[in-house]
């Protein structure tokens, strides 16, 4: 796995969350979208009509392409959400 975290940045505390049951590490203060990308999850959902893979596009709350299920709540924009310890995230397979 390539490490996408930029060097020499003092980060806040390390946390753990799960994506489709798998444990992923991240840092407080990161957006969920960033934490997903850093962990290698580029795809966040499938398009509703044709089911094609999609991932975050705008990164600022506009496009709704990065929506995931967080702690059981569907359609959460991961770019507008900070990642939290023990968050349970589900993304479309």
């Amino acid at each position: 796995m390539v490490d996408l975290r930029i060097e020499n940045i003092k980060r806040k505390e390390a946390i753990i969350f799960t994506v489709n049951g798998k444990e992923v590490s991240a840092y407080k203060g990161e957006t969920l979208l960033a934490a997903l990308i850093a962990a290698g999850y580029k795809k966040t959902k499938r398009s509703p009509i044709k089911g094609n893979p999609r991932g975050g596009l705008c990164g600022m709350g506009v496009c709704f392409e990065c929506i995931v299920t967080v702690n059981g709540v569907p359609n959460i924009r991961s770019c507008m959400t900070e990642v939290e310890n023990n968050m349970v995230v589900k993304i479309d397979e």
Partner: protein
Amino acid sequence: MNNPTQSQKYDVVIIGSGFSGIVAADILAKHQLNILMLDENMHVGGQLLRKIPEQLGEYASYNPDYVKKLGFRFVQNVKHQKITIMNRACIMGIYPDKKLLLEVERKQVMEINYNYLVFATGARERYLPFTGWTLPGVYSTGMAQVLMKSSGILPAKSMVIGGSGLFLFSVAYEYLKNKGKAVAVLEQTGMMEKIKMVPALAHQFSKVAEGFKYLSRIYLSGVPVKYSTKIVEARGNGCVEEVVTGKVNSDGRLISGSEKIYKADALAVGYGFVPNIEAPQLAGCDLEYAEDKGGWIVRVNDNLETSVKDIYAAGEITGVGGALKSINEGNITAVSILHKMELMAESDYVKNLARLLKERGHHMQFVHFFNSLYRVPAEALNDIPDETVICRCEDITMGDIRKSVAAGYKTPKGLKTATRVTMGNCQGRTCGPVLYDMLGLLTGQPKQSFGLFNTRPPLKPLSVEALAGFVEKD
């Protein structure tokens, strides 16, 4: 933030906490006004002023450029003043009797009454669809920037950066600085035209200095920078693996045989910015179409008052022009409101406004050049194959759009009825701007004549919790 109850009243409500919003708030708060500044984002500062992970909530040790330094000072100011700040606040409705409905923190619905309303909703990125732009790993340049600046994460190990506009270079700079492997930087418009922009830069020293800084780093890194080169296709198995590019002629059309393939893990694309006019549109403010200002913008007078009394608009939504213009317009709005409330003497008002309007003139000159010279010609849209998805939310293709227009659906409203474009989650914010261009190209009609895709409340999909709470209390 004090604890908001169900219904609140403010002298001034400011929607958006970018440069224009915070500058207006800062000035108004000095006059003991009761101010609410709300933003759907998690942080105060809008597009440009983003915290970086080293100093979350603490900007002091950071040494940004002049403009940003100024901005971060405003952010600190508004946090220390008596201003009610609500983040993660979305507009559910705007009503004629000076009333707003908000959804806050995804759970609470609030009714807000105001005397004056300021829209400072900024801009978002413009897209130009190409085959494969729906693949994961195609990111907007803004997203690439935000990942690096707000979360300290590279978008990918290697990345092609393409589209049009100065922002491409800013993103390439940031990416290189953080040891990303920039494979190429591709500007779709030509280089020679840019020289025409020089006079408009006379009053924009900070922008020129910034440009030099970006370009020198990119050139020194040996990254190829190509002009008149467009993205033809993003390809890969489930996500981006390679990017097909090609040279374009003066109409922005692909010159066949000029294609070139770059291998990369991601593709960052940006085609300039479009004003976020949906909230003012919902409030009934007159809009106008001005290609040289970024597309549909809010119509304002010299006081930046919109066609609706006591509603103002400031920043990118009156013409896309960057941070200095937004600061200037935040100022003008505050001065205008203070004068209307009889909190500023006539002579001070006249003097201040004249100075600010003169400065605004320079910014508007830049707006004109900036938006004209980086504008991809509409003819370029002819290159988009029928199978290419345009409306990502509803999987509607270029072919669907061509067919519908040929069948007589020649307005935004008609196209929406025929195809469902703009009816998905993003409500047309992604494909809407390019659809105006497509309609213009396919019908030959001026865009002002079509009218707009209508907006409907709520402006963004709401959470079930907020709605449930709202219904219970009603």
